[in-house]
């Protein structure tokens, strides 16, 4: 045979808790302390409750179109909790939970979902970029920020979040390729929730995994059980450590599932089966985590009630604050376009009566 094999690539997968929530890898699982587990559980609950409340607000017409992340809480929380304050995050519109955990006040988020740009005025000290709407287009930003960190010789990493759909976009490719070339301290987290609106993952790309794409860019890609908070945390942490110690980028494909509609403007029943939904409902991250907490003897109903109540109170307060915020002034339409207003902009502000 004139053909000879010149290269072999192995794609790895990480799971610590199995689908029912028991330790698939007891050694790894027991490395997490009780306190850590409790903090993780609180984060999961916080994300679940926020999302539920946001959905009700939307139904009541109190916020605009909202993209639920129901089912993806472990992937969001597991990765976010692995970050350090100095890391820079580049999320999409579905990473509401990541914003919350990185410290963005819930008030900001509710304002944003009302259609108020001020919601994405991220407070100084929180290095999370505003939600990126054009799918995939923000991935190169993480590469650039990571290149900047490397140039500045800072022990930081840049993290991009994006979906399975986004992995089909040219920006994904150019960004990961450049990150590989410059060995940039970047972590690329693909939230493979099996759907891009109505397009199933199988029709998004013909490759078996999205993770394996990383090898063409000269670094590792791995698959993680995205509904297993411990696995997501560990994979993210490992990737961040590697990035910060000069090991270059990593692509992490979190296998998860969007249990809700794409957004509140979508009706997933048009394109996917009840059976599929039921199957994934069985692997839902909170239930799994609860089961493992029980195994560890650190969960009971009262405990969960108490934690929930605290979270709910905080979010309720944030909703009140958000709704009590005065609407943006009309001059805001123009004022943030550039640092200084042009003559034309000044005229427009005056003629339209936007200065008052």
């Amino acid at each position: 045979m004139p053909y000879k094999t010149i290269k072999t690539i192995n794609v790895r997968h990480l799971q610590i808790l199995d689908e029912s929530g028991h330790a698939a890898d007891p050694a790894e699982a027991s490395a997490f302390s009780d306190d850590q587990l409790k903090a993780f559980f609180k984060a999961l609950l916080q994300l679940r409750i926020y999302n539920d409340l946001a959905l009700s607000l939307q139904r009541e017409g109190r916020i605009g179109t909202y993209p639920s992340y129901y089912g993806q809480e472990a992937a969001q929380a597991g990765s976010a909790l692995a970050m350090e304050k100095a890391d820079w995050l580049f999320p999409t519109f579905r990473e509401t939970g990541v914003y919350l955990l990185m410290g963005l006040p819930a008030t900001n988020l509710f304002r944003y979902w009302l259609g108020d740009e001020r919601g994405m005025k991220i407070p100084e000290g929180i290095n999370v970029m505003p939600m990126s709407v054009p799918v995939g287009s923000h991935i190169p930003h993480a590469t650039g920020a990571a290149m900047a960190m490397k140039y500045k010789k800072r022990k930081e990493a840049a993290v991009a979040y994006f979906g399975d759909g986004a992995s089909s976009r040219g920006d994904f490719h150019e960004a990961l390729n450049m990150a590989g070339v410059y060995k940039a301290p970047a972590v690329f987290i693909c939230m493979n929730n099996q759907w891009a609106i109505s397009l199933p993952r199988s029709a998004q790309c013909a490759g078996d995994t999205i993770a394996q794409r990383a090898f063409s860019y000269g670094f590792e890609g791995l698959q993680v059980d995205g509904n297993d908070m411990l696995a997501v945390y560990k994979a993210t942490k490992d990737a961040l450590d590697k990035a910060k110690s000069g090991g270059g980028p990593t692509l992490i494909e979190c296998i998860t599932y969007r249990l809700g509609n794409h957004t509140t403007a979508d009706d997933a029943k048009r394109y996917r089966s009840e059976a599929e939904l039921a199957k994934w409902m069985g692997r839902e991250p909170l239930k799994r985590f609860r089961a493992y907490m029980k195994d560890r003897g650190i969960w009971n109903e009262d405990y969960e009630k108490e934690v929930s109540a605290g979270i709910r109170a905080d979010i309720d307060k944030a909703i009140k604050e958000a709704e009590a915020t005065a609407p943006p002034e009309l001059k805001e339409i123009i004022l943030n376009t550039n640092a200084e207003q042009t003559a034309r902009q000044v005229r427009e502000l005056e003629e339209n009566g936007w200065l008052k």
Partner: protein
Amino acid sequence: MAEVDSKKAVTSPRLKVTMVKALNMALDEQLAADEDVLLMGEDVGLDGGVFRVSDGLLAKYGKERIIDTPLAELGILGAAFGMSVYGLKPIVEIQFMAFIYEAIEQVFSHITRTRSRSRGRFTCNMVIRTPYGLGIKGPELHSDSTEAIFCHMPGLKVVVPSSPYNAKGLLAAAVADPDPVLFVEPARLYRGLKAHVPEEPYTVPLSKAEIIQEGSELTVIAWGSMLHKALEATEGYGAEVIDLLTLKPFDEDTILNSVKKTGRVVIVHEATGFCGLGAEISAFIGEHSILHLKAPVLRCTGPDAVVPMALLEKYYMPSVERIARTYKKVMEF
């Protein structure tokens, strides 16, 4: 919202439908008439498109002709270009106008240049459909109106319907056109107005404007989403309202004839003014009709600012009041 029921839409049987339905009918007709016509884009299949313009077409024509694509705008337009030079007539849906930006190189460097580059050997019979504009309280980047950018691309036609009737007829004409057409649909009007539309196929010709209201004091030029506001704001004036319909190449005669009559012109569009299409129309009128002008040609447009999200959108978009103020300025000059 005012109902614009074209005078031409009088043949029977007629259906009272939304623009979404009218477009759906047009697509259905085109697919039925010519097996070289395909529809492709994100979520156009089972989901029927996020605005449901292609509802039911997958069931009728199958997934080889109603092609759900990966999330890859430049791949979509690039592949559609490959199909069209091969001989098919793809109709591409770009989910929102701002999402065509990744694929602008395909439009500008290939789709619009292939006839010239190959001196006619290869041509591109393609229609790119995309919704535009504010007024739907969409998330960020769901409300752009950047038609002017595409009007600056030699070789491309740019069309904007304003009613169910002309949406159906213009889309048919766009598919029939041997060159590429960007077909920009005002999202705010998708379901905002209903009108009678003939059930049978018909075309509304490209490059012809329609005089929606005759008048002799003021010429108002608008299209798509702004047309109805521009019309509403004419109350009290003998204004002639021109629905441009095809933005590039626009109907020069209809504009100049009206200017000759009125001597006063306002152009209304939603996009930011600087280098918007209003500038071209104004410059064109200045070049050809300066002696007829009794007042400056004014534009009432979006400001020089980033398109806002829901809370500010109704201020960014020219309102009936703002438009009326502009008319007043021109009338009182």
